[in-house]
């Protein structure tokens, strides 16, 4: 295993290729390769835990023209997010097991996992950009081919939005690299070698170009409107990957590229970026309150949750950075679980409106339990995962710009105002005349196993977050102001 990181991103890609050739039996290959990928990611996590001195794993391949190089590296931030990717990918395969889908479905998920892993590993900015764009393709097909009624519109909107964002990112990267070349005469895309001082007066422009690219992905208001459509139309597993990992790419980009390259600029942009993040927490909650479609509601709640991540990360305090990063994982687990359950409902009834159901607490008690549990985690109930991340992120924000934390706490308060009425409408209220609740069978063993895993992790992080915090902390230490 002389190239552990290459194997890590290549394994799911190989899986995708195998799946594409297998036809009807592709799901077994998908499961096998997802398990292999999860195993590799798990092994990397264990390696890191067993040997804290080995906090960064590097791999350097060939250098091509214009200084573009094959440069991979993994610190605990990368490994943590890759482990999240691998875990959610496995969950998605397990959750889609009984779907009647062609081989390409499974191939797309594995290809997506591979591209995401590449994003988290790449330390050469060109390579980063290639992986970044590569994530779009499988997700575009997942939404566009296996989504619900309005899937094509959503897929195009998703693609155009994020692609437009990445164009600005690419321009910023090009400007950065060429400025470095002008200053030193050396072509390089190596993140560690580049520095922003060569940019001179153009630095703010480049910084905002990068931020724009990341902000679309997060998504930051007002660049968020692709998200409700994409989440709503995507198949359940697609929504899980989209919310669980793809949104995190934006925050990861900030942490990995924008903050280290522009430490001062990013901090002076705090009132604007942090203000938008804090505003997102309230705006997302208010929008979620107005939704009548379960998936749309959860999608808007994602906007609010990512606002907390951003608040923490942008505060550049230890607790904010670590809490914000933990919140990335938390959101992946909680929102992932919620999207999966809406997906289970949709598989059974082909409906997902709040008023299409009712009385599910007595018809599907397991579903009610898991949905209620995840809802509580998502609204930040202490003892479950969401609280730890939110509390630390807000604590960080409070120490740099108190008004942001005030707004964030208001966002926490409002979260209950959409989540609980929705829970009541679906699970408690009597089934209305047009209700399809009668078609809802309770969760089967496979579905329960998937959800036990997710809720178990929520409880673990909620009650004893220390291992998780300690895992991420070393990678973020350098960003503390």
């Amino acid at each position, binding site marked *: 295993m002389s190239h552990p990181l290459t194997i890590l991103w290549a394994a799911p890609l190989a899986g995708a290729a195998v799946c594409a050739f297998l036809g009807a039996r592709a799901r077994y290959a998908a499961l096998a390769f997802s398990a292999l990928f999860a195993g590799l990611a798990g092994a990397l996590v264990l390696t890191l835990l067993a040997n804290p001195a080995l906090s960064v794993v590097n791999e350097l391949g060939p250098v091509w023209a214009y200084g573009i190089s094959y440069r991979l590296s993994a610190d605990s931030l990368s490994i943590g997010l890759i482990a999240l990717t691998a875990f959610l990918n496995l969950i998605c395969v397990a959750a889609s097991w009984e779907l009647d889908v062609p081989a390409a479905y499974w191939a797309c998920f594995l290809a997506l996992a591979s591209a995401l892993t590449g994003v988290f590993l790449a330390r050469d900015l060109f390579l980063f950009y290639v992986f970044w764009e590569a994530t779009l393709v499988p997700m575009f097909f997942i939404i566009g081919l296996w989504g619900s009624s309005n899937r094509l519109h959503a897929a195009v*909107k998703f693609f155009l939005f994020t692609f437009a964002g990445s164009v600005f990112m690419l321009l910023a990267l090009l400007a950065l690299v060429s400025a470095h070349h002008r200053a030193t005469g050396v072509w390089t895309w190596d993140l560690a070698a580049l520095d922003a001082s060569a940019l001179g007066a153009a630095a703010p422009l480049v910084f905002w170009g990068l931020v724009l690219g990341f902000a679309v992905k997060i998504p930051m208001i007002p660049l968020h409107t692709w998200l409700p459509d994409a989440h709503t139309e995507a198949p359940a597993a697609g929504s899980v990957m989209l919310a669980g990992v793809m949104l995190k790419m934006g925050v990861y980009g900030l942490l990995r590229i924008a903050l280290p390259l522009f430490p001062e600029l990013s901090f002076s942009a705090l009132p604007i970026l942090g203000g938008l993040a804090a505003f997102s927490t309230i705006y997302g909650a208010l929008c979620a309150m107005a939704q009548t479609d379960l998936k749309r509601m959860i999608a808007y709640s994602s906007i609010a949750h990512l606002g907390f991540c951003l608040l923490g990360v942008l505060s550049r305090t*230890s607790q904010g950075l670590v809490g914000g990063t933990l919140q990335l994982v938390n959101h992946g687990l909680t929102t992932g679980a919620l999207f999966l359950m809406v997906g289970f409902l949709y598989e059974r009834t082909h409906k997902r409106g709040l008023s299409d159901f009712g009385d599910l607490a007595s018809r599907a008690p397991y579903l009610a339990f898991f949905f209620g549990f995840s809802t509580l985690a998502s609204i930040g109930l202490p003892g479950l995962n969401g609280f730890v991340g939110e509390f630390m992120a807000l604590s960080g924000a409070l120490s740099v710009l108190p008004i942001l934390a005030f707004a964030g706490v208001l966002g926490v308060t409002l979260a209950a105002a959409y989540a609980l009425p929705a829970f009541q409408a679906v699970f408690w209220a009597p089934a209305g005349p047009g209700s399809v609740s009668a078609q809802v069978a309770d969760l089967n063993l496979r579905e329960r196993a998937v959800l036990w895993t997710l809720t178990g992790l929520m409880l673990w992080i909620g009650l004893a977050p*220390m291992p998780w915090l300690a895992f991420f902390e070393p990678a973020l230490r350098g960003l503390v102001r």
Partner: protein
Amino acid sequence: MTPAQVPWAAWLLFASPVTAILLGFFVLRRKPEWTHLPILASCAIVTASAFALAARVYTGHSFDLNLFRFAEAGTWAIDFGLRVDGPGVAVLAMVAFVGSLIHLYAAGYMKGDPAFGRFFLIFHLFFLAMIGLLTANNFVQLYLFWELVGVCSYLLVGHYHQKESARKAALKAFMTNRVGDFGLLLALLLIVLQFKITHFHLLYLKVASGAAFELLPLIGLLLVWAACAKSAQFPLYFWLPDAMEGPTPTSALMHAATMVTAGVFLLVRAWPLLAVVPGLPDLIAWIGAFTALSAAIIAGTRKDLKRILAYSTVSHLGLMMLALGLGQVGVALFHLIVHGFFKAALFLCAGNIAHALHQPTANVDDVGGLQKSMRLTYLSFLLAACSLAGLFPFGGFFSKDAVLDAAWHRGGGLAAMGMLVAAGSAFYIFRMLFLAFYGCRPEQKRAPHAHEAEPILGVPVLFLALGAAAAGLLKGPIERFVTAGFRGLPSGLPGLEVVLNLPGEPLLPHLNMTVALLGTLMAALGAFAAWRLTMSDPGFDWRWRGGPVEALFDSDFGYKKLVDGFAAAVSRSAGFVGRVLDKGGVDGLVEGTTGFVRAAGGAIARSAQGRINDYLWWMLAGTAILVVRVLR
């Protein structure tokens, strides 16, 4: 002290409820009708443990230690631990004892309910949450259990979720508490920012050091706000009367032991911080007095038996706040504990009446003359009512006298309001007693099949009533607990062996003859008025209804409308943001752009008909041009 030296009883407080709940959830899934068995056993263990710990604290062995690090990042850290001290353990013993009796009652009351298993699991989790709250040693840990208490109450109030009123009440309870939690969460964050620690005792020491902390007034105000929501004080009291939509054992547990007392307890824990903020104690006292008086007045006009008791709880919590605001921590705790006994007994009596009538709830029209058919319930109610009214020598006399004494020493409006509350309490509870158990007025439906409850419903109530009657005896022990709690110091934390001279007077006042006589006189006056308006003029309660006066009382003097208006405004603004601003505005702009591109594409080349390919090519071309521009 090390974790190994923590007494077994302290571990059992948590281990036995957790075990019972896990057993019920996983093992007894197939036999939900057995769910209560491990839970009742756990109640017995918890009660025994609580008393064992109380005995240790009584003999001077309180402790406070950190057990594990909850969260850490850089220099920022929060530890979780256990604090078993006087105030905590005094309330804990009451909660364990009263709560266990209510569990026993619930086993009988909920028998045959289709969701019996679920009910018992949440009920016990509720109990566990309160135990955790009382033994937390820092604010974050307290907040964890505080929220768990809130969630459990939400689920229990919404137990009969087929009923719309239950769903609404549950949501109202949770949302109102959430509004209060806004204060608590912000206060926690500010405490972390200002002090870098959340541990109670370390905070006490920091504040007592005399240094100036500029954020302390804001923190104090936010804590009071949070307590107003949880302990149902004005302006956030309105969820509690609706919360009686839950099954009666829930109401009893919520009102007596596990929910509403949490707010008062929070302020007791935070007292050393609050006391040094000028004006804040007075604010607490005035909030308490105002709430106590208004709620007592409204309680005197209600028809639904449980609703009368709910407003009564609001009123009595107000008295606790009054005592606390006057610096009398011990008095507040004393009244909290006595109140736990008589309120639990009264709620369970109301439950027995409803049970006898085969109704979920009963109002004054359904009852009357139950004295003969329900002797045991009548006796229990009478004992608890006398205690609530503050008649000598029942328990309530001593605790209420202590509150009145504190108010009397302050004088002025607070003393007058305290006395009026004494009269009002006696009025509403005796009105309830007379209407339910005596006579049978022509307006009331005679309840022909009313019968005494079976022993599992009767006996716990009698025990609680006897406790309520005799609770005056607790005065001495509670005084000792309170002084032990604040002066006997935690071990195990280095540098803490310093005696804290806390603000306020932890000792309970001696009986002041003037106040005692005046208070008794007021109570007698209230009881007499109740007799006059229900017994000597039996039709009165039905004559005055239907007019604008009733509307005034029904709407809590118009306040309910204000609250509903606020909720509607939030909901409307969410509708505006979600449907108009986001869908129409932001997204409309985006979708408009697509239309624009489409139109432009159509104009430039007929082939561009909004297909993805075309967009991609346009974008690639544009990007290429830009790339070239940047690189040159």
